[in-house]
């Protein structure tokens, strides 16, 4: 895994324009109306980037569009992964190519056990981790291998959702509100893990967050989404210093 990472960073160095994920003029929406209007993003290999914005700004819609969910419908623009347009691909194909998602509300399979949740991801990834390797990130999961997800706490389910995504050994991991509804000490635990996934595993991480403090704690670069438009691309320092900006777009 680390050798893959070295190889890909070397390749990147020779091709400066080779962002891992590029979203270009993306417009998307549901039957009820258009949500995204002109979203441009570029995430380089190895980065840890957040997408910030108020409730209803279109953050989850962006994640689902990148993952290729049936909804939202993509109305225009392009999504490129390693330079290749994936906008017409079904989501399982995107997953097979190395994009994993920890979705909003975790969405562990409620009536599958811990092992079955993780094994499903392992069975359908091209270059997965072993079961023990994936569970080793979370010793508490290792102690409840046979437990069904529906009988687990929110924090445990979040760990399982992350373990399931990690098990596929992805190149790009999308996380949708990974800290939502978790106790503060679990939030810190998950922060550490997300930072680790990026720094130690070399996985590029793109995450959506309403909890600005948690986003600032782990990412350096942030996109700010407002009413379906990317309004800015900012550093953590800018968000910390510019109170007017914080209030206007993030409501904090």
């Amino acid at each position: 895994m680390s050798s893959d990472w070295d190889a890909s960073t070397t390749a990147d160095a020779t091709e400066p324009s080779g962002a891992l994920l590029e979203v270009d003029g993306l417009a998307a929406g549901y039957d009820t109306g258009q949500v995204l209007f002109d979203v441009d993003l570029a995430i380089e290999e190895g980065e840890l980037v957040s997408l910030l914005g108020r409730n209803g700004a279109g953050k989850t819609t962006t994640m689902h569009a990148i993952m290729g969910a049936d909804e939202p419908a993509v109305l225009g623009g392009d999504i490129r992964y390693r330079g290749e347009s994936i906008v017409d691909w079904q989501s399982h194909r995107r997953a097979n190519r190395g994009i994993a998602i920890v979705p909003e509300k975790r969405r562990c399979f409620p009536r599958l056990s811990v092992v079955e949740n993780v094994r499903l991801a392992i069975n359908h990834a091209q270059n997965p981790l072993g079961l023990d390797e994936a569970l080793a990130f979370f010793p508490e999961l290792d102690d409840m291998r046979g437990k069904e997800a529906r009988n687990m706490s929110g924090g445990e389910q979040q760990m399982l959702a992350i373990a399931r995504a990690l098990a596929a050994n992805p190149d790009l991991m999308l996380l949708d509100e990974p800290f939502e509804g978790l106790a503060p000490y679990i939030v810190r635990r998950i922060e550490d893990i997300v930072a680790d996934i990026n720094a130690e595993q070399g996985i590029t991480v793109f995450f959506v967050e309403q909890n600005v403090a948690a986003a600032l704690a782990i990412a350096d670069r942030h996109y700010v989404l407002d009413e379906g438009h990317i309004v800015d691309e900012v550093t953590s320092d800018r968000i910390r210093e510019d109170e007017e900006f914080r209030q206007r777009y993030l409501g904090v």
Partner: protein
Amino acid sequence: MNTTELTREDLATVSPAWWAAALVAVVLLAVTFAVEPGLFIDQAIGGLVYGMVLVLVTLGLSLILGLMGIVNFAHGAFFMLGAYLSYSVVVTLGLPFWAALILAPLAVGVVGVVLEITVLRYLYGSDPIVSLLATFGLTMMIEEVIRAYWGTAPLEISRPSVLTRGTDLGVTTVPTYRLFLVGVAVLTIVAVYLLISRTDFGLTVRAGVQDGEMTEFVGVNLPVRFTAMFFLGAALAGFAGVLYSAETGMRTTMGETFVILAFVVVVVGGIGSLFGSVVSGILIGVSAYLTPVVLSALAEVTNQPWLALQIRDLVPYLVMILILLYRPRGLFGEEGFLE
């Protein structure tokens, strides 16, 4: 779909009233057995055969409903098509019954795949009433094709001689074919259970039932599995059709009768629960055959001849009403797809 642990949990929640009802049922059955042991065993096995056929038909219906949200009314037509195809294999092609047992279900499975690709694929995610109407239309088409090709007169095939003999059970002699049918059905049910609970295919299907989109997100090509499930469901219905019609013959009304009973079995067992379908199919089959015997024994014991009602065809619906009054989601149902 229940794992074994869950069913144990479910059983633990059964109330004392149920145990009391079960006790009454056991007493009634014991009395009946004492009065007419031969008839009792005969009818119990008849009910078991009927129940097993119902289970085989229902398994596919239940899997398709659970995975794809399709209310497949055409399932009865698959059952009937299996029966008529077995007639062609045995009578027209002159092949042995054993060949029909394999070939007819495969052919029905292929028909199922064709229908899935050409029609049902476009209905996923739509309102259940849409799939019900569409598959009702398919049912009409399949039934008319059967009437046009095989005619409306009842048909029958001869079974292999090994299976036409009787087996002596002491109090009565039952046709060996009935025991064969029960044995084959049990093996088939166990095979389906293992497929769903122990294989990667089964894991993806179970995940797909719980959250189809997330299953795609982890890299599973779910549409291919939908088609495979449709093949399996249709083939199981066809297989049941061959097994059943070898004993009773082929009739153009058999599809309609069985699909309605299969829906009763699904509802009684609990939508989405394979284990529930198995229990409910056997329960309905056996109670349909034994209730008239119990009533006639009661009539004899109490000297009230009016009690000996012939209500076999009514029993499945009575069972459904009773169960739904106490458990609106069925015996092992977790959440209703149609709620």
